[in-house]
């Protein structure tokens, strides 16, 4: 290979350690010394130096973003046990030992394709399957919220369009973590955008992309916390519907490499590597791509048409790493030759390596048998979709790139995909003691404020408050399959636990999508944060009538820099909770994602996010007409509390009001929870439940308030009628009302179903603690029988709605 004005040869064979690292840094490769040395050895063996194209290809393919080197690497883990002693162990491939292991051990027949394609695929109806994927797009959204979030949703939609031989996107879900919207301007660095500006930009980006694609956004959550000021989190997810016969690809040598959709430009150069390093004020906005949803819509429409005519054998999207990753993945087992000068460009002047790794949006790569080329081109041309043959899959087991007839890269597929050296990293975990509320501090709040005032204060917290301002900007009805909507109740403004949709209008089968997230618990213990998130996602879907026996999970790890032992230690804890919970609930993980290095470097300090685990859940429902909602329906109906209440205020909204974290993080008794969820699923299926809402942030008080104002009816609760798993000395009404213990529900039952319901719930922790009132007040009678909280529901609702009514 010779140097030209388009291609440089980079001398790495003669470099020492410093020289190698300097090359990695200068070219934004995000490769560490061991990786650079491995590359050096490879080229020393070949007797030549790499071209810039080769080095860039390796950097993209080996990026943390693409390879998950940390979670699949070797981890030397030590942890402190309860008695203070330290234990050490070596974990070889954390993901395989936890998340993926649970799925393998459960070995459920309805998991059709897991952890190998762009999304997880589960069985749905006789002919169809569902694909589900949730991705993050954090760093782009921090720099350019509108473009970053838009391309985040655009990217995950392409994952679905590129799973197997392609699925039709049918639902989007979006979860965000932002800094508090009322953060004072002068308290933050002028090198970042204000949290409210980021929030508005992200919402607009998701709105414009999702709405234009015609995909309903039916589910989501938003968390606000100061730790997200410098590094917001943006999770975008998509569910797809596909015929079962199209769930796998098989690329053969001789198939043409067909690039379909948008043109290639300089936007999004180094996205994969840039997402793998921390942000600072120098980070360039050019790493963020520009989206065009109409192009993606045209690509989706035509691609699915070609799929149904069996015109191609493989498809994948150009995501992180662009053509490099897409062609690399499709050609992994055979080989590929690509002529970079044939790729349609947005403008002239791009260098070969830029064409190869650009992350310009709306591009798909197909493997097309030559004999089908004319017919497939006809389909794309008929709807003005650009498609260009840029190469061919080969049997050489090599990746060969040419530019104007000159070879600019030749890499062994084996080295490209499996050559990356294993990381060995250290991880450590120990329990930290957090400050507990002192009697005086608590009484300062509780003494001056009635329980009603505390409730209102919690309802007005941005994390708890109504997200109607956001939800209404998303089209949640398009495609005509919306059954349980994100907003529900007497005037369509109560907070649904989960959404239900039927993607095939000729069938009553449908699916639920829900999520669970509460990073505040992770401040105490990432294990219980994760267990809680899984429990919450499952509670949410059980609430609307989801089937716990047919539920699959997705994980999304968002952490700081894994080079820090304690960060990685938290990840180990979280991954182990994934395994334990998935096994116990029999809810397999089918796909997942990790986003590490969520840190911002400010004046020499690294500001890390609060470690966050998002769990997304999907459940198949055979008849959506049996679903229910969370708004109370009729005065005189009975209110039951299901599940055990402990004094678990650690990480709660209540302690947050006191400015504290506490230590009593909500735990989960998996066996009990699974049994309760199963019984409740049955009771709902039998039509015995009028409404059902899960207890999460703000506990019993918030759940009761939400059910009441959503149903525009009052509710009365008698704490003396419940049984509380709290030691007598600590048994107080504040703990009962605001504890955030997991696996709990408030359920409304018509008196005529009392017997049948109680029979269905036999053996579970059930307490009849109240009833629906006509008078539109929420009343709580304390342990002594006296009214301790009385608020009119209109006032509660207004408080809950006001905060984010932007």
């Amino acid at each position, binding site marked *: 290979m010779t140097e030209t004005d388009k291609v440089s040869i980079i001398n790495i064979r003669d470099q020492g350690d410093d020289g190698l690292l300097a090359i990695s840094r200068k070219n934004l490769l995000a490769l560490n010394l061991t990786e650079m040395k491995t590359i050096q050895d490879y080229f020393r063996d070949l007797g030549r130096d790499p071209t810039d194209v080769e080095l860039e290809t390796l950097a993209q393919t080996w990026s943390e973003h693409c390879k998950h080197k940390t979670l699949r690497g070797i981890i030397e883990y030590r942890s402190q046990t309860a008695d203070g002693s330290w234990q050490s162990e070596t974990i070889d491939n954390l993901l395989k030992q936890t998340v993926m292991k649970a799925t393998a051990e459960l070995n459920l027949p309805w998991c059709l394709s897991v952890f190998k394609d762009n999304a997880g695929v589960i069985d749905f109806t006789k002919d169809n399957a569902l694909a589900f994927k949730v991705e993050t797009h954090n760093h782009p959204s921090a720099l350019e919220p509108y473009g970053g979030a838009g391309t985040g949703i655009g990217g995950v939609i392409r994952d679905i369009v590129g799973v197997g031989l392609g699925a039709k996107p049918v639902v989007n879900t979006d979860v965000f973590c932002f800094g508090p919207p009322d953060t004072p301007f002068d308290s933050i660095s002028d090198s970042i955008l204000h949290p409210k500006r980021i929030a508005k930009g992200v919402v607009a980006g998701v*709105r414009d992309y999702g*709405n*234009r*694609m*015609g995909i309903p956004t039916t589910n989501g959550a938003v968390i606000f916390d100061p730790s997200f000021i410098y590094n917001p989190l943006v999770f975008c997810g998509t569910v797809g519907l596909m015929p079962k016969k199209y769930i796998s690809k098989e690329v053969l040598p001789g198939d043409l490499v067909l690039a379909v959709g948008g043109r290639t430009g300089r936007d999004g150069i180094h996205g994969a590597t840039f997402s793998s390093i921390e942000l600072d004020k120098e980070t360039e906005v050019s790493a963020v791509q520009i989206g*065009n*949803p*109409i192009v993606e*819509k*045209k690509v989706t*429409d035509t691609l699915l048409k070609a799929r149904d005519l069996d015109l191609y054998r493989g498809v994948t999207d150009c995501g992180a790493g662009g053509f490099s990753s897409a062609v690399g993945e499709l050609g992994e087992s055979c080989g590929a030759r690509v002529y970079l000068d044939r790729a349609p460009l947005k403008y002239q002047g791009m260098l070969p390596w830029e064409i190869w790794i650009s992350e310009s949006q709306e591009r798909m790569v197909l493997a097309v048998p030559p004999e089908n080329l004319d017919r497939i081109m006809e389909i794309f041309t*008929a*709807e*003005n979709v650009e498609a260009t043959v840029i190469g061919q899959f080969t049997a050489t087991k090599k990746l060969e790139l040419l530019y104007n007839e000159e070879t600019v890269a030749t890499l062994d597929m084996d080295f490209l995909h499996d050559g990356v050296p294993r990381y060995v990293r250290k991880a450590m975990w120990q329990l930290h003691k957090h400050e507990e509320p002192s009697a005086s501090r608590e009484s300062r709040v509780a003494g001056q404020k009635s329980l009603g005032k505390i409730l209102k204060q919690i309802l007005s917290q941005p994390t708890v408050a109504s997200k109607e301002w956001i939800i*209404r*900007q*998303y*089209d*949640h*009805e*398009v*495609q*005509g*399959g*919306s*059954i*349980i*909507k994100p*907003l*529900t*109740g*007497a005037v*369509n403004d109560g907070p649904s636990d989960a959404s239900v949709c039927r993607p095939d*209008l*000729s069938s009553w089968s449908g699916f639920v999508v829900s999520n669970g997230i509460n990073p505040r618990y992770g401040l105490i213990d990432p294990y219980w944060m994760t267990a809680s998130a899984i429990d919450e996602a499952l509670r949410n879907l059980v609430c609307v009538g989801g089937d716990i026996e047919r539920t699959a999970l997705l994980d999304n790890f968002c952490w700081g820099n894994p080079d820090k032992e304690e960060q990685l230690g938290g990840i180990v804890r979280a991954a182990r909770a994934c395994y334990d919970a998935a096994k116990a609930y029999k809810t397999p993980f089918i796909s997942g994602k990790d986003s590490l290095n969520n840190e911002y470097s400010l004046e020499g300090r690294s500001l890390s996010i609060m470690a966050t685990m998002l769990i997304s859940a999907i459940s198949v429902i055979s008849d*959506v*007409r049996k*679903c*229910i*909602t969370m*708004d109370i*329906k009729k005065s005189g109906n009975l209110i039951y509390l299901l599940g055990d209440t402990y004094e678990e205020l650690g990480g709660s909204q209540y302690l947050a009001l006191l400015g504290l974290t506490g230590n009593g993080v909500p735990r989960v008794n998996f066996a009990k929870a699974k049994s309760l969820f199963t019984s409740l699923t049955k009771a709902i299926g039998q039509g015995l439940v009028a*409404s059902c809402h899960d207890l999460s942030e703000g506990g019993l008080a918030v759940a009761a308030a939400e059910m009441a104002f959503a*149903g525009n009816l009052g509710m009365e609760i008698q704490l003396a009628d419940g049984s509380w798993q709290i030691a007598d000395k600590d048994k107080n009404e504040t703990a009962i009302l605001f504890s955030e213990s997991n696996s709990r529900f408030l359920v409304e039952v018509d008196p005529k179903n009392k017997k049948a319901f109680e029979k269905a719930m036999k053996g579970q922790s059930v307490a009849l603690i109240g009833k629906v009132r006509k008078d539109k007040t929420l009343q709580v009678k304390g342990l002594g029988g006296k009214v301790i909280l009385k608020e009119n529901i209109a006032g509660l609702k207004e408080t809950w709605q006001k905060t984010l009514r932007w």
Partner: protein
Amino acid sequence: MLKPKVLILRTAGTNCDMETEHAFRLASGDPRRVHINELVAKREVMASYDILAIPGGFSYGDDIASGKVLANELRYELGEQVRDFASCGKPVIGICNGFQVLVKAGLLPGFTPIDEELQATLTFNDSAKFEARWIYLKVSTKNKCLWTKGIKKLLTLPVAHGEGKFIPREKKVLDLLKNNGQVVLQYTDAKGKSAGYPANPNGSVESIAGICNPQGNVFGLMPHPERHLTKYNHPRWTREKLGEKGDGLQIFINAVEYSKKKKL
């Protein structure tokens, strides 16, 4: 008897074509989704259909203005065919983006077969943002629209748009619309009374949500009848007693029935 053939027009950015197709199928029509390129290539094809539907979406990304590019394509590429289709009395419906297209192509209000100058527009909501919500609609008693014939009840349908504010060019146009019985649907509150935001979700003049041409066969509306075909689409089906049929279905049935009679 043969089912009336329904042409569901698609182009880049159309995204409600599948559910519109489903609606016509439920209504016993014979729908087919057709890309505009196909029609432009074979102009005579349009006349072989009995009903024309322009579904919702963001045609061409709503660049320039909502519906504008597709409207111009209809006007300048297929003007003659569309005019013939409408003037021979065949049912035409434009939903949401399709309504914007019909207005911007001059097919609505349609005082002449294709109005030379636009007589009305649909522009940015007063709230200045895209909004999705369920609203109530009153069917005006003296309208002559074939699509809403016989519908007396208050309809519950969803809207989802950023540019749905109906504004007539001048007072004279509004008067004409009213006098001709061209005002078909108006936003109301839950009791059927006219009300401000959010009952009128976009600030439309006189709460106008849908209009027809003077003959009553061309109908445009911002709300989405194809999204309320069964009661399980209704936002409160878990708490209210409702009939099995969704409020939007009758609109499609009316057109199919009309075409059947017309064919006899």
